[in-house]
C-alpha cells in the first residue's frame, strides 16, 4: 500500500507543468478558468499546439502517435492541464472514433483518418442518438441499405454535438432490420459534405449552440467507410463506451472548479468578511471537497487496477455518477457565491464581447456553468442508466 506518487511520477508532473507554463496562451487559460466559451478556431489552435509536442493523443498506441504514458501519467497530465486552465481536448475524433478505427479499422482507414485527427484537419461528431433512441440506443432506426459499393442512408440523428463544425461523423445505422436489436447495427463513417445531409441547430437552455439534429436523405456512403463487419457495429459502439476511462470521473475538471470556487468565495463578501469565512458556506465547500477526495481515491484505485492489467468494468459507472454529482454541487456553490450576480445572462461576456464586465471575471459564467453541468448527468449514459449497469453487472440484481 502506498498512496503517494513515485519520484518519476512527480518529475513527470513537473515536466508537464513547465511545458504548460511556456505554451498555454494566457488568453485561453483565462477564458477557461472563468468558464467561458471557446471558439472552434481556438480549440483547434490549442490541439495543434499539443500535437506539435506529441501530447495530443495520450490514449493512442505509440505507433499511431500516442505518448506511451501509463494511466497514472495520463491522469497527472489531465490534472495539470485542467489546473493550468488548458482547453479541453475535443473527444469525438481523438478519444472516440480513433480507438475504434485503431482496434477494428482496416489499414487504409487507419492511414486515411488517424493522421488527420492528429493534425485537426478533420473535426468529428458522434451520430448515435436518435429521437426515439436515447437511453435505449439499440432501438435506433436510421437505415443503411447496400447498393453496390455504397450504403444508402436514410433517417435522423439528434443531440449531435458539433455536427455544425464537423467534417466527418461516426454513425450507428441499422443494416439488418430483421435481426434482434443489437445485431443488425453497423458502424459507418460519413463525410458530412455528402449530398443529402442536413444539419439543424438545437439551442440549449444556456443559449448555446452545440448540439444539432442531423437528417439523412438518400445519403450515399462508400462501403469502404464501414468499420468492422457489417451488422457488428454494436461491438464497436460498446468498445468505444468503455474505452475512455481515465477522465471519466472528471476528477481533474472538478479540482479546477473547486479551486475557482475557493478563489471567488475568498473575494466575495458577506457581512464585510470573505464569504469563505461564513461558517455555513465554508462547511458546504468543505463537504464537497471531502467528496471529491473520496472520488479521486476511487478513481486512482481504478486506474491502478487497470495499470496492473485489470479492466475497468462497471466501476467506471461509479466514477461517472460521482463525478457528475460533485460537478453539479461545486457549480451550484459557484452560482451561490456570487449572490444576485448569478442572475445576469450576458452572452457577450460568455463569448468574445468587448464590453466592460458587469461585475467580475468569475461571475459572468456562474450560473451558465451550473446549467452546463446539468447536461453531464444525461449524456454519455444518463446516471439512472449507470445505476442500472451497476445493479446488473456488479450487484448481479
Amino acid at each position, binding site marked *: 500500500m502506498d498512496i503517494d506518487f513515485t519520484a518519476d511520477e512527480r518529475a513527470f508532473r513537473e515536466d508537464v507543468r513547465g511545458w504548460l507554463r511556456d505554451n498555454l496562451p494566457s488568453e485561453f487559460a483565462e477564458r477557461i478558468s472563468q468558464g467561458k466559451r471557446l471558439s472552434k478556431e481556438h480549440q483547434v489552435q490549442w490541439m495543434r499546439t499539443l500535437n506539435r509536442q506529441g501530447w495530443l493523443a495520450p490514449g493512442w498506441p505509440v505507433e499511431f502517435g500516442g505518448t506511451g504514458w501509463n494511466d497514472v501519467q495520463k491522469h497527472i497530465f489531465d490534472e495539470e492541464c485542467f489546473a493550468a486552465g488548458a482547453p479541453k481536448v475535443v473527444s469525438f475524433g481523438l478519444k472516440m472514433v480513433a480507438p475504434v478505427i485503431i482496434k477494428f479499422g482496416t489499414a487504409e482507414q487507419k492511414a486515411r483518418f488517424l493522421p488527420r485527427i492528429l493534425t485537426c484537419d478533420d473535426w468529428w461528431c458522434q451520430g448515435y442518438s436518435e429521437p426515439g433512441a436515447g437511453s*435505449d440506443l439499440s432501438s435506433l432506426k436510421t437505415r443503411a441499405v447496400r447498393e453496390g459499393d455504397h450504403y444508402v442512408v436514410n433517417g435522423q440523428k439528434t443531440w449531435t454535438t458539433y455536427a455544425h463544425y464537423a467534417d466527418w461523423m461516426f454513425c450507428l445505422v441499422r443494416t439488418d432490420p430483421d435481426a434482434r436489436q443489437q445485431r443488425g447495427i453497423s458502424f459507418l463513417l460519413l463525410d458530412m459534405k455528402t449530398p443529402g445531409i442536413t444539419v439543424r441547430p438545437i*439551442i440549449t437552455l444556456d443559449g448555446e449552440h452545440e448540439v444539432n439534429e442531423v437528417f439523412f436523405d438518400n445519403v450515399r456512403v462508400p462501403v469502404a467507410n464501414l468499420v468492422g463487419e457489417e451488422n457488428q457495429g454494436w461491438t464497436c459502439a460498446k468498445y468505444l463506451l468503455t474505452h475512455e476511462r481515465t477522465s471519466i470521473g472528471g476528477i481533474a475538471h472538478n479540482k479546477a472548479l473547486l479551486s475557482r470556487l475557493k478563489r471567488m468565495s475568498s473575494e466575495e463578501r458577506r457581512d*464585510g468578511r470573505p464569504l469563505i469565512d461564513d461558517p455555513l458556506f465554508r462547511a458546504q465547500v468543505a463537504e464537497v471537497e471531502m467528496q471529491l477526495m473520496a472520488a479521486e481515491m476511487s478513481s486512482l484505485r481504478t486506474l491502478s487496477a487497470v495499470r496492473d492489467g485489470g479492466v475497468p468494468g462497471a466501476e467506471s459507472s461509479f466514477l461517472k455518477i460521482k463525478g457528475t454529482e460533485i460537478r453539479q454541487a461545486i457549480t451550484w456553490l459557484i452560482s451561490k457565491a456570487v449572490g444576485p450576480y448569478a*442572475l445576469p445572462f450576458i452572452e457577450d461576456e460568455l463569448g468574445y464581447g468587448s464590453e466592460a464586465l458587469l461585475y467580475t471575471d468569475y461571475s459572468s459564467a456562474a450560473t451558465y456553468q451550473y446549467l452546463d453541468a446539468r447536461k453531464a448527468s444525461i449524456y454519455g449514459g444518463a446516471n439512472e442508466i449507470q445505476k442500472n449497469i451497476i445493479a446488473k453487472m456488479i450487484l448481479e440484481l
Partner: protein
Amino acid sequence: MDFQLTEEQLMLQDTAARLVRDTYGFEQREAFSQSEPGFSRAFMQQLGDLGLCAVPFAEAYGGFGGSGVENMLVMTELGRGLCLEPYLHSVIFAGGLISQLGTEAQKERLLAQLGSASLQMAVAVDEPQSHYQLHDVQTTAVAVTGGWKLSGRKSVVIGGQSAGLILVSARTGHGTRDEQGISLFLVDPQHNGVRRRTFATMDGRKACELYLDEVFVKCDAVLGSVGQALPALRYQQGRCIAAQCAEAVGSMEAACALTLDYLKTRQQFGQPIGKFQVLQHRMVDMRMELDQATSMTLLAACVADQEDSHERSRLLAAAKFIVSRASRFVADQGIQLHGGIGLTWEYMLSHHAKHLLMVARQFGDDDHHLQAYAKLMQVA
C-alpha cells in the same frame, strides 16, 4: 383553521389564470422577453385595467384591500405562465414600501399610478458587497440645499431598466452595516447622474445595474423618515418572499405537470419511461417537494401582512428556505427525467427550470434564510 377560498378570491384566481392563459404562449413569451422592456407592456396594462395591479392596496387609495392570500393567488398564476412583468417588484415591493412609509400625498399619487399600471417601479437594494443583507448599504445620500445627493451602485435591479421611478436605499448616517441611518429615495432614472446598464437575466427577464453619480433629488423624494427605512425594507421584503414563494409554486406545478406527462408518453425499451420505478419515485419526490412548498406558501401568505414580529420573520424565513430548496429539486429533476429534451430552449420546461433555480438568488438564498431561521428559532 379554514383553507377555503372565498367567492371573491376564487374569482380573482380565475381572472388571473384566464388572463395568463390567453396571453402567454411559448412564442409570445419569447417575443416579450426579447422586446425592449423585456416584458409585455400591453399585458401589464391589462393587469392594471382589470384591477389586478391594485389588489394589495388599501381601498382608500383605489385598491382592493387584498392581503397575502390575494397576492398569492395572483402570483401563482403569473408563475404558472412564467410571466415576465415586474409585478412583484413594482406592485408588491415598491407599492408596499409606499403604502407603509409614504406621506398622504405620495400614497395618493403613486399608488393610483401603480394600481392603474400607468407607472412601473423598481426597488434597488442589493449592492456588490451586500450579499442579500439589506443593512449593508454603501450608497450614500448627502444632505444639500433643497435636497440630497446620491452616489453609489445598486446591483441587479429587476425591472429597473424600464421603471419610471426607482426606490433606492442609501446611507444617510451611521457607519457601514449599521442598522440605523438607511433611507429610501424615489429616484427618477432620467435625472442627471443616473446611469443604467441593462441586461437579460437567466430567467428571461431584464434588469439593470444602477449607477448613481451625485444625483440630486429634492426633499420630497425621501420615502419615510430619514435614517429609519430598514425595518420597512425588511418587512416589505417579507411580503415579497411570500409572493415569490407563490410564483415558484405556480412554476413548480407547471414543471411537474410537464414532467408527469412526459413520463407517460416517452417510450424507451418498449415502454413508457414512467414504468421505471426509479423514475416513479423521483416523480413522487418532486410532487412531495411541491406539496411541502405549497404548504409553506400558504403559511407565508397568511402571515405576510401581519404586524411585524420575530414570529412572522421566522415563518417567512422558513417558507423561503423550503421553497428555494424545493424549487431547485424540481428544476434539476424535471430536466433529468426529460433527458436531452429537458435541456432545450424550445421547450417550456427548461425555462421553468431556470426560473426555479433563480428563486434563491433574490430576497436571500437558502443559506441566508437558514441562518436567519436559526437565530430566531425557539430552543426551549
